[in-house]
């Protein structure tokens, strides 16, 4: 079940909220737990046992990992086993085949459990925080189970730390307040509208270019990349907004996951604004333990590069994600060395273009397709436009693409003014959000929904 599906919007979510408001306070966490289990089982069925098994294991082992690196290492390894088995075994076989040329005995294709990359990171962050005494050992299994399974962040984040929401498991801190419900609902609707009204419309252009049935002229390639750049932002940030909105309705507060990433003036800054909860996780649990920037420049650069290779692989077990991660890692190194330091609008433009080009391997099915699209981008003289370019420049989609571009790239001052305008007019904002919800519902029912991109990871 995904947030943008009619069964969630019209049945699962309203029914959960209604029951949540009607039952006594003490049963509310139990309800959320049951709802989360149902939510997960609807998408991944028996794989719920993996996550429950990990949760029980972590609860049992957590008292023994404090100041004991060996046990901690073993516990982390156990947590990584399902991730490696489900996500990377096939990839390792492929690497082996490509490197040595000898095929391994074929393992049966396994279905990737939903959200495995996210809940594994949740689990590891909990273990490390306990081991480092940042949080006390949690004696209530149901709180920890709810932390792991809580449906708003279960499938695609944001990656929340136990410390950040542990106090919110106390029911007295989560009384139902109209303001919370209202702001949560508004955030949820905003995310839904971002996904359906803009993300999915841009996807229609991007899919035509990345799926191979359209001529790869320069115009088509650039338009496709631009559309995908907008699609992935509005899709993923829309999802994050929906998740945060849902959590807020139930009285939880999630950390922010995006801060206008396409307004960044460097790749370094981009990563401070894009998928913040993931960047933070890698920083705190990989980069700093590797030595961070305290062991000289070479080691710092190496650490940075390693982080991005891992980040690429975390997104998907494929060479294309590796190229995407390495690309970002290399560019971070270049910036750290001071070889590339544009600032202001020029910096923003360059960063935007680099990010766009690096989304190509992220989206393309193969490295050869990536290469074709990159080549098409630079071959201006030969095939600028083709007969099918007109199918991409559908007036409605182009309008929405331009709107998306304006939202993402408008100067910070204008953005702040715009934000203030809406903040000072809550009724107008509420009306506009309601209108956007109505439009999104219409589009959803007409065109259906596409899965969130990050739900595949």
């Amino acid at each position, binding site marked *: 079940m995904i947030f943008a599906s009619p069964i969630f919007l*019209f049945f699962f979510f309203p029914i959960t909220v209604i029951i949540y408001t009607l039952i006594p306070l003490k049963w509310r966490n139990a309800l959320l737990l049951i709802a989360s289990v149902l939510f997960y089982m609807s998408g991944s069925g028996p794989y719920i046992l993996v996550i429950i098994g990990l949760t029980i294991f972590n609860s049992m082992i957590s008292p023994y990992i404090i100041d004991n690196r060996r046990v901690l290492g073993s516990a982390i390894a156990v947590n990584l086993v399902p991730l490696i088995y489900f996500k990377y075994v096939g990839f390792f076989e492929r690497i082996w085949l490509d490197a040595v040329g000898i095929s391994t005995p074929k393992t049966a294709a396994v279905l990737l459990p939903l959200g495995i990359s996210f809940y594994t990171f949740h689990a590891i962050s909990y273990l490390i925080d306990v081991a480092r005494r940042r949080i006390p050992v949690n004696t209530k299994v149901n709180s920890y189970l709810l932390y792991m399974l809580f449906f708003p962040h279960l499938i695609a984040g944001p990656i929340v730390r136990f410390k950040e929401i542990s106090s919110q498991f106390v029911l007295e801190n989560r009384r139902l307040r*109209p303001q919370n*419900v*209202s702001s949560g609902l508004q955030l949820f609707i905003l995310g839904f509208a971002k996904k359906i009204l803009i993300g999915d419309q841009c996807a229609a252009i991007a899919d035509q270019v990345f799926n191979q049935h359209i001529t790869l002229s320069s115009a088509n390639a650039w338009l496709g990349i631009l559309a995908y750049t907008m699609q992935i932002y509005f899709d993923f940030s829309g999802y994050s907004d929906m998740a945060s909105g849902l959590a807020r309705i139930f009285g939880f507060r999630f950390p922010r996951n995006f801060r206008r990433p396409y307004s960044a003036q460097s790749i370094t800054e981009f990563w401070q604004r894009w998928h913040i909860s993931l960047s933070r996780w890698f920083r705190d649990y990989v980069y700093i333990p590797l030595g961070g920037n305290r062991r000289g420049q070479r080691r710092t650069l190496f650490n940075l590069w390693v982080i991005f290779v891992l980040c690429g692989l975390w997104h998907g077990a494929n060479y294309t994600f590796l190229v995407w991660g390495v690309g970002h890692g290399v560019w971070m190194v270049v910036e750290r060395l001071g070889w590339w330091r544009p600032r202001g609008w020029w910096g923003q433009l360059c960063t935007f273009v680099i990010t766009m080009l690096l989304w190509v391997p992220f989206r393309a099915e193969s490295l050869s397709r990536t290469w074709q699209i990159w080549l098409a981008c630079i071959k201006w003289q030969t095939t600028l436009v083709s007969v099918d370019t007109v199918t991409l420049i559908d007036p409605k989609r182009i309008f929405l693409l331009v709107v998306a571009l304006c939202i993402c790239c408008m100067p910070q001052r204008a953005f702040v003014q715009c934000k203030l305008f809406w903040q000072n007019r809550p*009724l107008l904002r509420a009306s506009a959000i309601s209108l956007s919800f109505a439009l999104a519902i*219409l589009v959803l029912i*007409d065109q259906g929904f596409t899965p969130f991109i990050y739900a595949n990871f």
Partner: protein
Amino acid sequence: MKKYIIGIAYLCVTLFCLYELQWLITQPRQYQFLARQLDTIEVQIRALETNPQGDEFRWLSDDVTIAVPKPTQTGIVHMHVWIAPGRVTTEIQVGNYRLTTPLFLPFQSRRIAILTTPSGTQSSLLPIKFIFKPNETTTPIAWAFAGAYWSSITAQPDPQPQLTLFVIITLAITTLTLYRISNHPLTSITFAGIGVLMVLVAKTPISATIGWITDQPALYNRLWVLAIVWLIWFWKYPKGLAFLTHAPAQARVVFVAYGMLTLIPVIGMIAPPESANIQIEELRKLQECPDHWTGAQWDVAANFAPLAQCVTDHIGWRSTFIRVKNEIDYQVFGVSSRIYFGHNGFYFMRRWSDERFPWLQEILQTPSQRQKLLATLQQINQNYAKQGIHVIMVIAPSKEFIYPENLPWNAPKYDYQMVRDFENDMEASGLDVIHTFDLLQSHKKDVPLLYHPRDFHWNDLSAYYVARAVTDRIAKHQKITNPWNHPLNVCSMFRKASDQSFAALLSNRNVYSETYCQITTMPNNTPWIIENRFDRDFNVWRADFPSPSQTLGALEIDGDSYSMYFQTAGLERYFNQVVITKFANWHDAFTPDHLGYLQRGNVRYVVWQMRDASLPLLLNDIYNEY
């Protein structure tokens, strides 16, 4: 006191609005004539029955003539009827005229549209009777009548002032509601302003925009209930729900919007509105709701997926939501996600232009793929040749290639030369090909239209020319000269356009009539029999012609929905049997079942008809989508 005055005023406005709505409901129904009104007929064989869809109908014997009210203006009388099993009819007697009808399938609900011109007085009646072939069954049941209603096609008497008033009142009520909830005049006025602006800039008149409502009496019954519930809730909610009372104004706006927008589809799903008249053609089968658990007990996800898809496909008011969305797209951007709005009233399906033609072009431009496609066609040819059957390949061009001048600016324009070159390759490799594109191009100026403007199919005229070419080709193989000797008679008819349901605009009426030409060449009104209708693999339409003027043997046409148009092309004059078959998969043509069929009928020639847009599917073993 002020509170009560406002309350009474508010109630008055609401009631007035509902009155207007009621007027709209009853206005078109005055022309309706339902099965239950057949009580005056003496010969009635069964009482009123109800089918699972809730339609009332009455079974009648073949000698019954019913009379529906005859309108005084030019319009169309739409009748809903069924033909009983075992009965065959191809004619209907309307007044003094005998009209040829399309083939009726047993138990299939059909709508007959009869064009009527002004004459007589309002009280005059239109006698209608089916002409059946001699009784083949002992049952007296011949046909069932559900209802008839009339719609105007000229001088539309839409009550423009009332409709405008209706829209204004709706806007006023919504604005008031918004004001009541938010207590913020600027928001309400802005909303109202946007509404007025939308009405003013609307491309189609308001009457057309809400014309769809008139098709759905059941909708209004529910609207009444909804309106009353809404009224009670709205009047009482501050006292009833403390949570909402304490919520700030903006929160109330969001709660109401979310509540309404989620509640309406759910209510619509539980108590579905009458949807028979507003079906939208989606060229796919909607997901049926699962009624039992499949697979292992723990396999929740596999069982949940069809349930989720079922909810998506059957959500309440789905058709209405889709139409509203498409209307907004059309009004604001002039586009549709389903079709291209072309010139001269032409609609072009986006699926072909955006997906299929680029795919076709890619295949034909990639040597390996092109070779594979050619090899597949050769394989088909050889498989038939093994049975001693000669194949004639007909690739039907899409109307985008025959009428490119009607494509809008934002539709891609592909060159058909790619397919013509491929046809040359086919010919060079020994296949027998009819160059359909050249054939139709040469006759484009001879006749008014070769394709339906608002449907993706060709029309009877295209089928006529292609049938003539096929017949001449077969005659040539049999060394018979100039066999095709019957003239082309065309007449203007009205038909229901299917692209209306593809476009799915709010302003579209489901029964849209467009002029087209139908050939009248069937001298004996030979019926087409469906032999294998419910078979999963293929459907067969067969016609036996006992006395053709010049026999060329039996002919099999394997094709898609285009090949159905061959039924009226006049093939009965030259072949003693014609079989039209639709396969889902091309391999099915060579299953023992079908080959046995061909051998029994002594078929020596097969026309292998495909659309250009379907050629890529052959590589995935698919022959026919629809």
